[in-house]
């Protein structure tokens, strides 16, 4: 019995020492979901930097979305995970009369001005839009690439655009088409097609809603493996003790 007690103790110590191994991860590159094939331009002398979809998405957000939408829950400085240059972020923040520690506020001074500039609908905050909007990321991806020419027989009010995917106002959408072919030059050479940009900016919005997803899944896997190991040892010990005590 004594020796069994000692065995238990050793198992415990082993368990504890394993726990103290710290896990440090950097979000690994996620596989882009149904990403259109990344096309690169003619090879240049410099190797092109490898960019994750959400990193390209941040560029789109900075240059396009943030001219109408806020992302109040995030700070400019939070983007350091996607844009490692603090100077570049500082520059972006300063352009918007803010600092790294300010929330990414709406460009409009008031809700009334925001509405007036967008055909009567206020551009919603994007902090958690990937989770809160009906249809989630899939909806966002399709809606952004969903603008179509106005079909015959449909008349649109001024500042209204035809988008059969959009949820509001029976396809008569108040957001002017944000994406245009080739509007951004991505440093990694990815061609800025509309489906490509819709995909990347959606990845960014998912990241903004839930930035720790990849780290979380990595730690979760590690924890489960560890518990499986510990559980195996304990199970063996338990069955041994069942016979001997």
């Amino acid at each position, binding site marked *: 019995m004594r020796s069994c*007690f000692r065995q238990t103790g050793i198992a415990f110590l082993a368990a504890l020492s394993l726990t103290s191994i710290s896990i440090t991860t950097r979000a690994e590159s996620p596989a882009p979901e149904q990403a259109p094939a990344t096309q690169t331009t003619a090879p240049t002398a410099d190797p092109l930097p490898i960019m994750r979809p959400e990193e390209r998405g941040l560029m789109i957000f900075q240059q396009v979305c943030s001219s109408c939408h806020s992302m109040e*829950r995030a700070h400019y400085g939070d983007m350091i995970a996607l844009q490692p240059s603090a100077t570049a972020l500082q520059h972006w923040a300063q352009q918007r009369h803010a600092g790294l520690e300010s929330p990414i506020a709406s460009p409009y001074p008031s809700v009334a001005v925001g509405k007036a500039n967008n055909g009567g609908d206020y551009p919603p905050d994007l902090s958690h839009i990937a989770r809160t909007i009906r249809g989630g990321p899939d909806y966002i991806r399709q809606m952004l690439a969903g603008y179509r020419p106005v079909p015959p027989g449909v008349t649109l009010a001024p500042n209204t655009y035809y988008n059969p995917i959009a949820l509001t106002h029976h396809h008569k959408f108040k957001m002017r088409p944000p994406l245009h072919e080739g509007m951004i030059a991505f440093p990694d050479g990815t061609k800025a097609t509309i489906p490509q940009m819709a995909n990347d900016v959606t990845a960014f919005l998912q990241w903004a809603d839930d930035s720790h997803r990849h780290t979380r*899944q990595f730690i*979760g896997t590690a924890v*489960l493996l560890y518990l*499986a190991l510990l*559980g195996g040892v304990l199970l063996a010990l338990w069955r041994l*003790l069942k016979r001997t005590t």
Partner: protein
Amino acid sequence: MKDSIPPTRNWLDTRLPFLRPFWQHMAHFPMPPVNLLWTIGACLIVAFGLMFVSGLFLSLHYQPDLSLAFDSVEAIERRVPSGWLIRSIHTGGVSMLFAALYLHVGRGLWYGSYKAPREIVWLSGLLLMLLFMTTAFAGYVLPWGQMSYWGATVITHAVEAIPGIGHGLLVYLLGEDTLGGIALHRFFILHFTLGFIIAAIIGLHILCLHGTGSSNPTLDSPHPDRSTRPFAPFYVVKDCLAVCVFLALFAVLIFFLPELLGKLDNIIPANPLKTPADITPEWYLAPWFAMLRAIPSRLGGLIAAASSLLVLFLLPWLDRSPRHNATYRPLVRLGMGLFFIAFITLILAGMHGATPLWVWLSRGSMLVWFLTFLVLLPLAAYRERQTRDASTQGETP
């Protein structure tokens, strides 16, 4: 040199002489042949420990102020190093803790753990359950999201149903007419303090249990097994194994199914002017929410919900049969089985809208709840005491 310390004895044992007898007691504590349901107590200790520690870390960064609360939670999620991990342990831990708690109480009901000589263990456990419910409710208000605000509004206004003093009491408790900054600060202090109170009562609960020992689920069976094993090492290992499985489920929940936790409405800041489409409580408080809704009168609902808990305190005296284990008590087996179904129905009812179907299912379940404990159990106990000759089992003197 009378004082000289024998070198063989441990330094700490010499200075704290009660340590050795304490460990001796724990190691040799005689355990009857209990089944796996008796490992849930250990899981509860671990779950509470995790809640306590993660809660302390959260409170370093949380700000109980109307204008800062919501953002401080977002800051914990986004900017505090490992903040998201600590917060997910705390928010996921509530569900794990309540799941284990209800299983633990269910075990007590089925195996008659509430009976003599464990009444105080049972009562201290019920006190813990009430404190957990209060703590969970107070904690849910703290992030000050839409569901925090509206959930708290609905529940605090139930107080208003108390005749005469209702409104005055509500204003006194909230510190102002409506749920606002003063109330938020109070909820934080309540939530924080209750953690320590619960810790103390858990100690008391286990102390009381060690007075009488765990109950023996085989005593009422045709083949009672009166053998015991010392707690160490067998039950130490068994408890650790159960805790390991519990933690694995915990990990699956917080790392892989986070969308099951937390309502969408709660990542929207509280807005007193905009009621969310439907106000639903977390699953672990849903049964009592369903009861409040099932009774047309507000006061009646409040009384029903409160009595459903109070009746549990009376169980040791409602069921005075010497038999413990429902497996060998046909009538009780039926009653407890129905009660478990009723409890799950009430959870579902509380989480769904107040459609006539769910309201009537709630009413039926409440009927089962009260009939089981107030009629069926005393009746079964009475009959079993009449035919006492056949049952010298059990351990009641």
